[in-house]
């Protein structure tokens, strides 16, 4: 016990005395969270548009105003003819052009029908789709309010509600994902690096000839990083909540317990990596390439797993982050308890035990 305590103390000295380690542990997670937070967006804001209004009556004015006051769009230019449309798209700033036909308001009143054309720059299909749907939404809304009695033949009116994320905020999606990614990377990478560093510097040789048992070395390596990673997770949840407004509707304690479980899993994975890697470089490469990309792509953090090809769907089952993302989304957004995530929790526990067992077995009590 005393041996373990002094081992852990030594490990903390290593961490706190190495500026690089400190940066990876605390700088990168926060930077990553903020970068992901501002980069990944499925909502639009301040999109530049141009309007070609051939009618210039009250109705078109009101519609234009309503569109511009929504906060999603900024008017870049009023066009006078259709010739400029292609040029203006080529310049790249304007993403959408709205064209009202002449006598728009009059036609609408008399015939109950008028045409508006939405032209979008689809070189970025995602934005184009979003822009079009936002604009149509606003126009439809306007028409409905102005002419409540206007009845189209055989109309079905869907009432849409986005449960758990009413405003479709993308932060709700990426905060759990980034949390999984960061914890996975930091935990696995830092433990694997710290063990391989001992191999590289030759200190492992001395640890091996000492009476320390493999389990003591492994636990001594895991505990400091576990504590720091938990602190990290706490900071991520806090930033998610304060900066990006992601709620924690479920039990905070359950959330933290699940997080600790996930960190344990990642740490054990890191130790497993270190038993295979000979030096710090290899350990870092395996952790980065082997864990980062699959975690981003296959965990359902950015791309829905259901839409993947079957092969990738099958592979995604071995990605621990997939289960963790499901769990924390459920707890943070839906506010559910353990009863709803016990399956995923069990899978994570199983993976952790598996990694511990394999790394203790593979941990070499000798050189070679």
């Amino acid at each position, binding site marked *: 016990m*005393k*041996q373990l*305590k*002094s*081992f852990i*103390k*030594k490990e903390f*000295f*290593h961490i706190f*005395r*190495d500026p690089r380690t400190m940066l990876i542990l605390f700088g990168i997670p926060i930077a990553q969270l903020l970068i992901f937070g501002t980069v990944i967006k499925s909502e639009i804001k301040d999109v530049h548009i141009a309007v070609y209004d051939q009618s210039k009556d009250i109705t078109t004015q009101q519609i234009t105003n309503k569109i511009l006051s929504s906060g999603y769009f900024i008017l870049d230019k009023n066009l006078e003819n259709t010739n400029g449309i292609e040029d203006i798209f080529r310049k790249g700033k304007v993403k959408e052009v709205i064209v009202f036909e002449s006598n728009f308001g009059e036609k609408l009143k008399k015939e109950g029908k008028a045409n508006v054309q939405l032209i979008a720059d689809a070189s970025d299909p995602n934005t184009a789709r979003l822009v079009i749907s936002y604009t149509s939404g606003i126009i439809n809304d306007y028409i409905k309010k102005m002419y409540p009695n206007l009845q189209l033949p055989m109309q079905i009116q869907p009432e849409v509600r986005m449960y758990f994320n009413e405003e479709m905020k993308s932060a709700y999606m990426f905060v759990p994902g980034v949390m999984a990614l960061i914890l996975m990377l930091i935990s696995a990478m830092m433990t694997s690096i710290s063990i391989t560093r001992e191999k590289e*510097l*030759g*200190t492992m*040789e*001395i*640890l*091996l*000839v*000492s*009476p*320390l048992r493999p389990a003591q070395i492994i636990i001594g390596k895991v505990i400091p990083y576990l504590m720091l990673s938990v602190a990290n997770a706490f900071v991520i949840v806090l930033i998610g909540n304060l900066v990006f407004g992601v709620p924690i509707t479920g039990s905070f304690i359950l959330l933290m317990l699940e997080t600790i479980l996930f960190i344990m899993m990642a740490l054990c994975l890191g130790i497993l990596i270190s038993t295979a890697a000979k030096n710090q470089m290899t350990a870092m490469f395996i952790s980065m390439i082997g864990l980062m990309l699959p975690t981003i792509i296959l965990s359902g953090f950015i791309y829905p797993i259901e839409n993947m090809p079957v092969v990738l769907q099958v592979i995604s089952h071995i990605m621990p982050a997939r289960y963790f993302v499901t769990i924390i989304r459920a707890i943070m957004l839906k506010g559910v308890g353990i009863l709803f995530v016990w399956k995923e929790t069990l899978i994570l526990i199983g993976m952790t035990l598996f990694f511990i067992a394999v790394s203790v077995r593979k941990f070499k*009590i*000798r*050189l*070679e």
Partner: protein
Amino acid sequence: MIKINQISKSYNENQAVKKISLKVNEGELFGLIGPDGAGKTTLMRILTTLLLPESGEAKMDGLDVVNDFKKIRHIVGYMPGRFSLYQDLSVEENLNFFATVFGTTVQENYDLIRDIYYQIEPFKNRRAGKLSGGMKQKLALSCALIHKPKILVLDEPTTGVDAVSRKEFWEMLKKLQKKGITILVSTPYMDEANLCDRVALIQKGELLNVDSPQRITEKFPRRIIQIRSDEMYRLINDLRAFEKAESVFAFGQFVHFTGINDDVETNELDIYLEKQNHNNIVVEEISPGIEDVFMSMQSNSK
């Protein structure tokens, strides 16, 4: 204390240790002498349970290096060839860490390391990575001794250390030996061989000879002639060109010469060298040192 019986070990195709058998007595200061790549480190790692031998067996204080490795790890102090302490921990932190790891405290065994440690104690708050070569080595020795081992295994402890520190280090080893610790030390330096009680000469994984340094040189049957002149390089070349020369080696300021069948007299060489226009020629017969033995064995085994 240490019994090695027919130990072999190879890495891939390369046989590092070939059927070495050796016995080290209790309380002995035993030297493994040989050039780089002779297999000294491999042999020491087998003894410290870091490597498994391919064949043969070895016992440390009666404990088998394969089966009783856990017990051996309590009674052996090991100092690897490379400085292997934590560079980012201070001198004191390193010492305390290794003391606790071995289940003891610095205070408990302080008298054993006092002679060594008091020299680096003024720097106890300095990070180990910032120590000089000699101080690092003293710290490493203190750490290897902190659990009062019965057997101390030192792998090239004086490599990369200045001459003064080397001398001090060997004095420390002598003191430790008096305290009853069996010491196995390897070195590539022949002059250090003379400080051991007994030495084993190792070359390419094979044991060439085991005896006390004096006996080894006494038993050496060849005559060694020591020569110097003003132009060292030309001297070696000229001597090698001499028809009755068997081996010619540079040894510091001198050249050591052995003639074919020892059938060369000093005056013969005098005359020969004067003919080659060498100045300040000194030619004298000396008693062979351990280097000469080693060199001759090396060339025989080729």
